[in-house]
């Protein structure tokens, strides 16, 4: 890790304008975030805190209402820069394409020649453990496998910044841990910078070099923790004491924020769990 800044958000806010009688929604910020080249950064926060908005801004999918966003020194203004890949929480595999064609999708759009496509797709499918399913359709695969297809589809484009928006949110806890291991392997192998958005404290604590804990909406960083993990790590960190300290600290930061997101006053008695409107 060189410590060089790879991407940053400076004083970024995102406000959704008023729609038909509903007041404008201040979803995010102002926040500052500096991603170092090659690091694994996780953002945790309560539901609806603007984590995903933060990622959309960084990916160029949504322009910031205020503030500056840049990737590799170039400003991002609501259009997707080259070298950025994203995987989303929803299953975004295409059911009408085989696993192989799903993985090749982006390369074909870029007009990469067939031999190169074959080389990169074979590699990505092998890396994600999908080689035996190359001719299967997503409907024949489990949720975890489908998410691997989406990761492979991003991987073939050789992104230098990989954005992951709760990619394992819909998977069961054990599968999530195993997918976490694969993510670490992928991160080490590609040398890419990874930004992981998650609501799972253990996932954030286990996978990342740094964790940013985000407040309830409008999301801001409460604190950024350095985990101090070695680069060569996996889910066996869960057994150690440090893991408990990190998750403990994260929960300390987020407990009252999560209550706020559920409609509670901090430290109020347990009651109804009315969702925040909007």
């Amino acid at each position, binding site marked *: 890790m060189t410590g060089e800044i790879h991407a940053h958000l400076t004083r970024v806010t995102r406000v959704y304008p008023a729609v038909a009688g509903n007041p404008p929604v201040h979803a995010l910020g102002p926040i500052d975030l500096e991603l170092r080249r090659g690091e694994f950064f996780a953002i945790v926060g309560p539901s609806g805190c603007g984590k995903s908005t933060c990622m959309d801004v960084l990916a160029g999918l949504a322009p910031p209402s205020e503030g500056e966003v840049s990737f590799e020194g170039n400003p991002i203004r609501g259009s997707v820069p080259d070298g*950025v890949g994203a995987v989303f929480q929803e299953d975004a595999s295409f059911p009408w394409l085989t696993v192989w064609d799903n993985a090749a999708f982006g390369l074909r759009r870029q007009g990469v020649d067939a031999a190169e496509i074959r080389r990169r797709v074979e590699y990505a499918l092998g890396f994600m453990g999908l080689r035996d399913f190359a001719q299967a359709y997503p409907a024949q695969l489990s949720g975890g496998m489908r998410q691997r297809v989406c990761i492979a589809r991003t991987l073939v484009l050789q992104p230098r910044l990989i954005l992951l928006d709760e990619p394992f949110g819909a998977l069961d806890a054990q599968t999530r841990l195993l997918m976490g291991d694969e993510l670490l392997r992928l991160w080490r192998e590609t040398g890419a910078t990874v930004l992981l958005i998650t609501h799972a404290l253990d996932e954030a604590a286990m996978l990342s070099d740094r964790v940013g804990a985000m407040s309830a909406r409008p999301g801001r960083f409460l604190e950024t923790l350095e985990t101090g993990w070695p680069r060569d790590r996996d889910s066996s960190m869960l057994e150690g004491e440090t893991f408990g300290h990190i998750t403990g600290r994260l929960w300390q930061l987020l407990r009252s924020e999560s209550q706020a997101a559920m409609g509670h006053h901090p430290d109020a008695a347990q009651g109804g769990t009315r969702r925040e409107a909007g």
Partner: protein
Amino acid sequence: MTRLAWIRLAIVLGAFAALEWLVQSGRISTHTMIPPTRMVTELWAILASGELTGDITQTLGNVAIACLLSVTVGFVVGAGIHAIPRLRRALDPFLTTYYAVPFFVFYPLLVYIFGMNNLPMIAIGFMFAVVAMIINTLNGLDKIPRVYDKVARMHQMSRASMALRIQIPAAAPNLFTGLKLSVAYAFIGVIASEFILAPGGLGYAIAFAYDNFDNETMYALMLFILVLVTAINMTLHYLEQRLLRRQGF
């Protein structure tokens, strides 16, 4: 064939056998119904003589034109309406109640305007089929996961490329439903028009046979339409299964 298909076949054959018995044994008068076996032999004779080839080609031609028009126009209009959410919201109740308006009442008017030719029948078939295609195009476009929009932008795809590579394949199951309904509705529209007022065609031939107390021809032709439409529907169903089964639909 699966077990279910065998049971289905047995039920259909059983129904025909029962009808055969009811008529042969005199429980249903031959003034009302003729035995199914007679329908088949009669139909064979009619087809072999070639006297109705003109009517058959006329009906099928009109249905084909009405289908082609309604699928194309329905898809384009559906996609257009989908692109303008406000228009779509305003049109929704009209689209949903569209089939409550018995469009056949316009048929005499169309004959009056266009004259006694194929146009009014094609127009009725089209009016009947096009809205099914519009509604199913809208349904298909609605069901496209929103995340695909993000995926398309991550791949820096143009609007046209996104439509071709993502939206149409994603909406394909509903588009196919629209196609199937359009075929069925175009048939209903064209044959019903021929039945009421027409210069020719299968529906006309049935009505003509009815007016002349020619039960043999009438039932033979009914059987023909039932078999023809069922065969077309089954073919489309088979194609749909082949196209879409792998996608888990």
